[in-house]
């Protein structure tokens, strides 16, 4: 008795898939049911199960709700409605609370949740604007918009074929967006998915795949960057410099804290921050530097921390020409065989390592000059950087005898274009809406 009905339904689905998407509004799936079967299986009549979030008593209508009502009334004719809904709801402010309010309003206005797929798509699109794209609770709330149990397949045929494909697709899309933002679903997500689509649906599969891979990749990056970077430029510089100089002995020195002085003439003089890093090895190398050869202050070089770009400067020298490199002489009496006090540091043998045991790679070494120190500064001009150099002189007095050449490029563009000098480049980039809106599906490092 079931079979003919299912067949009919399959035809319906086929037809439905063939038609342009726009025509299947409202997409509750109810219209796919043949009228005769409705009563028998009671799918439409079953009350929609809502979670606690949705089933709270309706407060008195707000203006927003009224617009929603109006929208839904109009909606039979127009297509792009939910986007407007968000736009209108958040004309003044765009916060999580506003976003949640829109979702609540939508959930409460109609027990049948007509148009929820469109609503969810629209909401997903608007999430970054509201700054909630990394909030698992918001995703769960959006999932909660789906009516419960309606889309759960009830027999093997339904299970076999794509049951309520648009809804499932929408659910998958939601999970996909979570994935792209590196948000790990939680147990609530799982419960919701099970209630909405059943245990073996496509969204559930997607959830399982995410849960398989995400934990494995969670610590794939051995040098994680926090989502929220320190706002203090000194702290940010400290973080960035230790990130570049992967030497646990390297010491951070703050040569100057940022401050503003007022001169006698009443002018405001900005004193930019200068934060430097130098390891003991670099210090000894610098101490051995031939004072007749110059050292260079170069920069700025960019360093990206997620979406933030900071700039750093180097103190480096040209590679030491081969005629000047002095082979470290070793005293045979002290290092050689039979001679050493405790054990010979080298053997006097005419035997090299056998080829079969030589696992070294043949690497073409590019001769590079030594880097003696690094710094980050609030301003990339020569005055600021020479302050850094004079600070370095305290620990490396030889620097006073070495000619220092400043090879500075035009400087970080962000820095110079900023009218407000106080704004650091990173802050500027962070608020840059163009980058925010870029979909970062593939390039992102997923966290």
């Amino acid at each position, binding site marked *: 008795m079931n079979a003919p009905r299912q067949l009919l339904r399959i035809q319906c689905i086929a037809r439905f898939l063939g038609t342009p998407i726009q025509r299947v509004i409202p997409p509750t799936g109810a219209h796919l049911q043949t009228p005769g079967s409705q009563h028998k299986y009671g799918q439409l009549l079953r009350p929609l199960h809502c979670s606690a979030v949705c089933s709270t008593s309706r407060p008195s209508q707000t203006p927003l709700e009224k617009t929603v009502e109006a929208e839904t009334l109009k909606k039979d004719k127009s297509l792009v409605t939910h986007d407007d809904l968000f736009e209108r709801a958040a004309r003044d402010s765009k916060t999580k609370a506003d976003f949640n309010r829109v979702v609540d309003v939508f959930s409460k206005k109609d027990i049948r949740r007509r148009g929820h797929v469109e609503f969810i798509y629209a909401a997903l699109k608007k999430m970054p604007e509201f700054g909630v794209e990394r909030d698992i609770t918001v995703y769960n709330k959006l999932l909660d918009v789906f009516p419960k149990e309606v889309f759960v397949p009830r027999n093997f045929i339904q299970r076999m074929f794509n049951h309520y494909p648009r809804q499932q697709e929408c659910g998958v899309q939601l999970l996909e967006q979570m994935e792209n933002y590196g948000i790990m679903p939680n147990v609530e997500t799982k419960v919701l998915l099970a209630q909405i689509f059943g245990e073996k649906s496509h969204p559930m599969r997607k959830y399982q795949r995410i849960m398989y891979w995400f*934990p494995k990749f969670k*610590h794939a990056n051995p040098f994680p960057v926090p989502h929220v970077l320190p706002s203090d430029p000194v702290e940010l510089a400290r973080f960035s410099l230790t990130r570049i100089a992967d030497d646990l002995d390297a010491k951070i020195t703050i040569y100057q804290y940022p401050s503003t002085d007022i001169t006698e003439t009443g002018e405001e003089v900005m004193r930019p921050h200068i934060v430097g890093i130098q390891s003991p090895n670099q210090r000894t190398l610098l101490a051995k530097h031939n004072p007749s050869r110059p050292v260079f202050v170069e920069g700025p070089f960019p360093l990206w921390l997620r979406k933030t770009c900071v700039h750093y400067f180097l103190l480096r020298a040209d590679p030491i020409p081969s005629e000047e490199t002095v082979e470290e002489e070793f005293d045979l009496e002290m290092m050689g065989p039979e001679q050493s*006090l405790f*054990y*010979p540091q080298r053997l006097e*043998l005419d*035997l090299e*390592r*056998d080829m079969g*045991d030589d696992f070294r790679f043949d690497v073409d070494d590019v001769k590079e000059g030594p880097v003696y120190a690094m710094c980050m500064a609030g301003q990339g001009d020569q005055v600021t950087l020479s302050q850094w150099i004079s600070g370095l002189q305290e620990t490396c007095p030889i620097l006073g005898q070495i000619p220092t050449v400043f090879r500075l490029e035009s400087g970080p563009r962000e820095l110079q274009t900023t009218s407000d000098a106080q704004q650091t480049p990173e802050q500027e980039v962070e608020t840059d809406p163009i980058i925010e809106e870029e979909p970062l599906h593939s390039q992102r490092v997923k966290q």
Partner: protein
Amino acid sequence: MNVNKLFGLTRSVSFGRNVFATRVAQKGDCVHHFRSRRFIRSSARSLTYAKDLFLGKVNKAEVFPFPEISKEELEELNQLVQPVEKFFNEDVDSKKIDHEAVIPPETLNGLKELGLFGIQVPEEYGGLGLSNTMYARLGEITSLDGAIAVTLAAHQAIGLKGILIAGNDAQKAKYLPKLATGEHIAAFCLTEPGSGSDAASIQTRATLTEDGKHFLLNGTKFWISNGGWADIMTVFARTEVVDKDGEKKDKITAFIVERAFGGVTSGKPEDKLGIRGSNTCEVTFEDTKVPVENVIGEVGGGFKVAMNILNNGRFSMGSAGAGMIKRLIELTSEYAGTRKQFNRSLSEFGMIQDKFATMALNAFVMESMAYLTAGMMDRPGVPDCSLEAAMVKVFSSEGSWICVSEALQVLGGLGFTKNYPYERYLRDCRILQIFEGTNEILRMYIALTGMQYAGKILTGKIKEMKKGNVGVVFEILGKKLKDSVVKTVDFGLTGKDGVVHPSLTESAKMFEQNAAHFGSTVESLLYRYGKTIVEEQLVLKKVADVLINLYAMTAVLSRTSRSISIGLRNHDHEVLLTNTFCKDAHFKNNFLLTQLQKNSPENNDANIKKIAQEVIAKRAYVCSHPLDRTF
């Protein structure tokens, strides 16, 4: 069967007699010679035992028969030992010394009266003039108190030894008499803050004054035993030396420095884990004026002096460890015999018995190694026993640690309390693995010295092999084939003209097998690594361990053969110990040698290195906590 036994016995008797005959003859010849040359000599001798093992050769003439001392010497020694033993049992309060971290003056005076401050100083300078072997015997007793043993060792094993072996007659006449009586105490100042075991990087400097009569000494020395109360110090410092090309070079020179020269200050004594009664502190020299006559040896020749002092002084740790373990066995066996658990005496439990066997074996092996080495050093001529001495030190320091820990374990919780001496012994003997060259450094020394020796001889052959010389390759293949077919290696230790007693044949065979295998392993290591083997510390550690085991096997085989032959009391127990130890060492060696093969699955070195690198790169334990979650 019986006939065989009888035959064996007669043979061994004759063998023993042979041994004796030669010994006596030798002694007779050089008795005069011997007396005058009891003190330490240094520099190289052509015949070496341990180094030849690297070539797969067993130089049995060097180690068989086991060295012995003459009857008169033994009597003299026993006369000395008795009062010393009595003194240590009755007048030394080790607990108090440990607690108060100072040796009381009356104890020190007692030691001085016994002559223990000049054991090896010749009689003409007022010392006891004992040989290395006799010194080792006294070391067994002095080791009953770690602090005293270290104080005495710092005084005479290293402190005054520079004067003894490299000083000129004037220096000896000036300093040795007072040092021998203990009126002056000596110290050895080599280590510096910036150079622990890396003695080549010492910074203390001695500059010649303008009149050329004095050196001005400036610098700081660290961890100087007896540094607080020493009157005479052997100090090593850099001096500028013009070498034969006319270039100025920094070389190390040894000086005798009296505290009375001025400018010498000692720091606060270090608060140590063990040997608390001994005085260890920092010594600073500030423009100390040292007359040029006080240079030991020649200017710029200090390195060799330091090397000889250190290399030859280590052997006594073996007898010291053995003395300590013997005492511990007495103490713990009494407890194990009386203490009842589950209605059985503790000594009936297998696991407790295991501990006693370990202690007995270790004491036995240490003793054998120490006296074999001491005997080799006492032989006329100029023996080079630095390798052997280092092996004794490594083996006995590690063995002592294990044994003291096992002894403590027998007592359980009681051993952990301060009511019993075990915790003190445990703390005291921890230093053995650290001072006089850490065991790691000594293992490197043992392995590399041997590798250098073998490498010089084998280089030609290996080069031919690498060139693909068919003749050499076939020769080697043929030798390998023969070894695999015949399976028996014979160095002539057993059988006709054998030097090992027949009842130890099996053990001797095991030793021979290991020795042959070791020789071929060294060859293949040289083939594989050449001179870059210096960087392969994990390989060298295994090489050193095999060699130490081989030397220990030699020592016990030699000693027990002698014991059986001359019918020493309880020599059957020695046979048992020898066979047990040799079997154990044989399997350990087999495992180590297998690990040393190329692509050996037993070898975990690559992983070990990687683990360490990852941990060190992070400077922390790398793993996440087992309770951590990712979702």
